[in-house]
C-alpha cells in the first residue's frame, strides 16, 4: 500500500517541474532559509487562489455533507455576508494546508533540532522537528498540527503533519477534513530562487483517496515579514467606517 502510494505520488508530481523555468543559481544543500512567496504559474493560477486542483477531490459521504454546508471564500471573491469560512468570519487559525491560501509570504528558520515556519498571516508558527523523532502516535488535536521533517536528498525537505482538529478547511472552497488528516509537504528546491511544494492530503474519514497538488514558490531575498493580526486587524470592520 505504502509502495503504491509512493508511485502514485511520483507520477502525479513528475509533470510539475516542467511548468517551471529555472533561471537562478543552484540551490544550497539542505537549506531552505529565507522568505518564500507562492507564485503559481498562469496554468493553475485561475483556481489555485481557492483550491488545489481543477477537479474535485473524491470525498466520502461524511465529507460531502460537510462540504455542502460550506460557503466558500473563493480566492477573495466574497463579502462577509456570503461566506462562512471560519478563518474569515471568526479569525480561526487557518490550519494546514489552508494556510497557503493567504496571499502572504512565509519564512523558513533552521535550527539544529527543528525548523521553524513563520507565516506572515496572523503570526502563524509551525515547529517542524528534525531530530529524528517519529510522528506522535496519539496526538492532541491542534490547529496547525504536529510536524516532523527530514531531508530526502540535498534539495528535498519532507514535512509530515498529523494531530489536527477538524475545525479548519483544506482550502478556501470549504473542503473538510477530520482529525485523521495527514498532510505531507515535499519542498523541492529546484534552484536558488525556486521551489516546488507537493501536497499529499490523506484522510480516511474525509477523502476516498489521497488529494495531491503542487504549488510553486519563489525566494524573496529582500522581503521581511511584517505583521498581520487577524483578531486585531480584521474582526472589527466597524473601524473602517468613517
Amino acid at each position, binding site marked *: 500500500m505504502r509502495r503504491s502510494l509512493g508511485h502514485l505520488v511520483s507520477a502525479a508530481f513528475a509533470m510539475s517541474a516542467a511548468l517551471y523555468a529555472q533561471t537562478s543559481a543552484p540551490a544550497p544543500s539542505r537549506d531552505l532559509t529565507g522568505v518564500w512567496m507562492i507564485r503559481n504559474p498562469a496554468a493553475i493560477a485561475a483556481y489555485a487562489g481557492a483550491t488545489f486542483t481543477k477537479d474535485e477531490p473524491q470525498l466520502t459521504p461524511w465529507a460531502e455533507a460537510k462540504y455542502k454546508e460550506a460557503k466558500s471564500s473563493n480566492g477573495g*471573491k466574497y463579502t462577509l455576508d*456570503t461566506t462562512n469560512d471560519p478563518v*474569515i468570519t471568526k479569525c480561526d487559525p487557518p490550519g494546514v494546508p489552508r494556510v497557503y491560501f493567504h496571499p502572504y509570504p512565509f519564512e523558513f528558520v533552521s535550527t539544529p533540532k527543528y525548523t521553524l515556519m513563520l507565516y506572515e498571516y496572523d503570526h502563524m508558527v509551525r515547529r517542524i522537528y528534525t531530530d529524528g523523532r517519529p510522528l506522535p502516535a496519539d496526538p492532541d488535536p491542534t490547529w496547525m498540527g504536529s510536524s516532523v521533517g527530514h531531508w530526502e536528498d540535498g534539495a528535498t525537505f519532507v514535512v509530515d503533519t498529523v494531530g489536527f482538529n477538524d475545525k479548519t478547511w483544506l482550502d478556501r472552497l470549504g473542503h473538510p477534513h477530520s482529525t485523521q488528516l495527514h498532510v505531507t509537504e515535499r519542498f523541492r528546491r529546484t534552484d536558488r530562487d525556486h521551489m516546488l511544494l507537493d501536497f499529499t492530503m490523506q484522510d480516511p474519514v474525509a477523502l476516498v483517496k489521497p488529494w495531491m497538488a503542487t504549488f510553486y514558490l519563489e525566494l524573496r531575498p529582500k*522581503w521581511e515579514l*511584517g505583521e498581520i493580526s487577524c483578531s486585531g486587524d*480584521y474582526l472589527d470592520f466597524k473601524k473602517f467606517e468613517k
Partner: protein
Amino acid sequence: MQSYRTVLRAKLLALWAGTAAVLMVSAPLLAHHGTAAFDTGQTVTVKGTVTDFQYVNPHAQVYFKVKNDKGEEEAWQGELTAPNKLSRAGWTKHTLTPGDSITVGGNPAKNGEHTLWIRKLIGPDGQALQLFED
C-alpha cells in the same frame, strides 16, 4: 464688544460645523472586505485631492475629494492592498498626505457608492505608484 460666552459659542459652532463637514465629506462606508463588492468589469478614473490616508490592515484606504461635473465636491474612498504588500512595493504611511493631487483608476463598488478598488494611482509627482509587490 463680544462677550466671552458669545466667542465661545461661535467657536463651538465652528467646531461643530467643521466636524459635520468632515462627516459629510467622509460619508462612504467601508463595509467591503473581499473583492465581490466591486464591479471588476468596469473601470472608473477620477482626479481628486487626498483628504486622508489610512495605512491599515487588511487594506490601506485612500480618502479623497473630487469635483463633479456640476462643480460639487464629492467624497470618494479607494481601497488598496495590505500595508505589508505596499511596503514591499516601496510605500510608507507618508506616501500620500492630505492635500496631494492624485488620479485614481479602479473598479467601482457595486452598490453605487463613491468607492473604488484601486487599480492605478498617479501620485502627486505625476508618476504612477507601484501598487503591488513583485
